[in-house]
């Protein structure tokens, strides 16, 4: 079990309010991802759930029980830190066993659990090493192992993959997703990488300056972003967002179209522009187009390979049913 409810939670550091009043429910078994730009309060929110940061006001419930005043270890949560936070003076075995030893579990029971966790995380060969003698990915696994053995009602991850290289990051991402599939335990995962958010989450919570901009499934956020911020934040490459006369023509104050929803043509179309850079990824081509009259550079994503190059004149036509429209307040209309 692990249903987490935040009621009217706020956080201030001194005079500055980092989290204005905030309500949020994370259902049991859900994989919730907090995303947002740096400094928006993701870690602070996670740490408040963990109990490492006191609430300025409000209340946190886990499985219907008010845990606002309960110390971290009594909340039944396990946390994986960005820096891994392994105990450098202990072997991998001792690191993983540590929370169990603190619970006062029998040594034989501990050994069994540690062996099992190590096996599932491919750490069996490293049990007697110290963390300093492990690679980043292995350290991350140890940190996860230390969380798993406690059998928590929810896992909290604070940017666990951001210290890993790109290839390893993709691998670990899958492993964590698989872990969630098999354990069905609630997970709250903080990241500023929206690809991680999109691929892993059941539910994404988009934060900006401590305010929840939108909560929804990845595809809800992709198809119906509630406002300009979410529209620009979710999706890669970013949505093309423009205002002014071109937006007015479409009946909006601000309008947006995703790169994958623009068609190109060499002879005619809605907007005419000049190719700046064309990025050929093989599977896709990202074409960055100048001088379209929309203001910023426009990015277009074409499936497969297209033969356009720097300086070519090109015509762009948005798929009209895929245009997102926003009003003066930046809200979706």
């Amino acid at each position, binding site marked *: 079990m692990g249903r987490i409810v935040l009621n009217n939670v706020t956080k201030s550091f001194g005079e500055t309010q980092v989290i204005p009043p905030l309500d949020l429910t994370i259902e049991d078994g859900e994989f919730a991802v907090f995303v947002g730009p740096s400094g928006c309060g993701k870690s602070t929110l996670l740490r408040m759930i963990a109990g490492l940061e006191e609430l300025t006001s409000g209340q946190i419930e886990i499985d219907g029980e008010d845990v606002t005043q309960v110390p971290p270890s009594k909340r039944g949560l*396990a946390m994986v*830190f960005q820096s891994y*936070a392994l105990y450098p*003076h202990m072997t991998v075995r001792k690191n993983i066993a540590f*929370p169990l030893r603190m619970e006062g579990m029998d040594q034989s029971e501990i050994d069994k659990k540690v062996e099992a966790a190590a096996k599932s995380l491919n750490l069996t060969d490293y049990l007697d090493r110290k963390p300093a003698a492990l690679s980043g990915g292995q350290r991350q696994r140890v940190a996860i192992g230390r969380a798993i053995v406690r059998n928590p009602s929810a896992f909290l991850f604070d940017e666990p993959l951001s210290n890993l290289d790109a290839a390893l990051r993709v691998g670990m991402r899958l492993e964590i997703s698989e872990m969630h599939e098999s354990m069905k335990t609630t997970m709250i995962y903080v990241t500023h990488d929206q690809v991680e958010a999109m691929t892993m989450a059941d539910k994404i919570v988009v934060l900006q300056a401590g305010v929840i901009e939108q909560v929804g499934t990845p595809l809800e956020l992709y198809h119906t972003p509630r406002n300009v911020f979410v529209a620009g934040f979710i999706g890669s490459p970013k949505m093309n967002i423009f205002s002014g006369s071109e937006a007015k023509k479409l009946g909006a104050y601000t309008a947006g179209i995703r790169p994958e929803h623009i068609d190109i043509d060499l002879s005619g179309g809605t907007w005419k522009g000049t190719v700046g850079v064309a990025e050929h990824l093989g599977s896709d081509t990202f074409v960055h187009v100048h001088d379209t009259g929309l203001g910023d550079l426009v990015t277009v994503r074409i499936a497969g390979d297209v033969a356009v190059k720097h300086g070519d004149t090109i015509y762009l036509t948005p798929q009209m049913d895929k245009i997102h429209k926003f009003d003066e307040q930046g809200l979706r209309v």
Partner: protein
Amino acid sequence: MAIVSTNSNISRYGRPVLAWGVALLFFFPIFWMVLTSFKTDADAVKPEFLIWFTPTLDNYLNLTENYDYWRFATNSVITSVCATLFTLVVGIPAAYAMAFNPSRATKDILMWMLSTKMLPAAAVLYPMIFLAKGIGLYDTHVLVITVVSLINLPIAIWMLFTYFKEIPKDIIEAGKMDGVSTWGEVKEILIPLAWGGIASTALLIFIFCWNEAYWTVRLTTIDAATLSKLIEGNRAPEGLFFGRLSAVSTAAVGPIVVLGWFCQKQLVQGLTFGAVK
């Protein structure tokens, strides 16, 4: 070009010469003291015997036979060991609290502790003596250990605080998530991780305690008197007994120099504040 080469000449020859000069300047009094301790009191004041003289062990024999050296030495050991332990027992929790649970007052408290080191000891000399006599603790181990600990506590806390600060906060928080008690946090995480720093601090404090003279001389007569008192007692006004005085001094600083020599690495690490990583 010319300037560069002059510069490098100066740094090639000038610096070592300067370094050696300074080192000798500092070392000379100690060297002289050790030499003098092997001279008779009569030889000690004669310039012609500065280097060439007939060495004698009389001063040292005299020290153990007539001056009760071992009792003073034992008191020095008791005082230094107990004061160092006491300093750590109080200092570790204090530094821990300030490093990991700082409040708005933490900075001020640290500064205030340091400021107590700026108070001239003489300013509180008489109040201290009256107080000590008043509560019947004059010339006792309890008093000497307490006073010596307290005057070193600020430095100990500062040093420990600096070491503890280097421990990543995440690790302490991971401990909190894993359910360690406060004492467990100190025992399982803090002490093992800051072990080098704690050892350096202990060593330095031990040396300070051993060398403490101002208070140990003034707050004791016989029972709790340390080696500092023995030196003080041999400082004859006429200045005639230089051989004996030198032997006393050598025997007093000897143990600590030997200790320092063996723990050099730890000490240097401690003084450069960079041991935990």
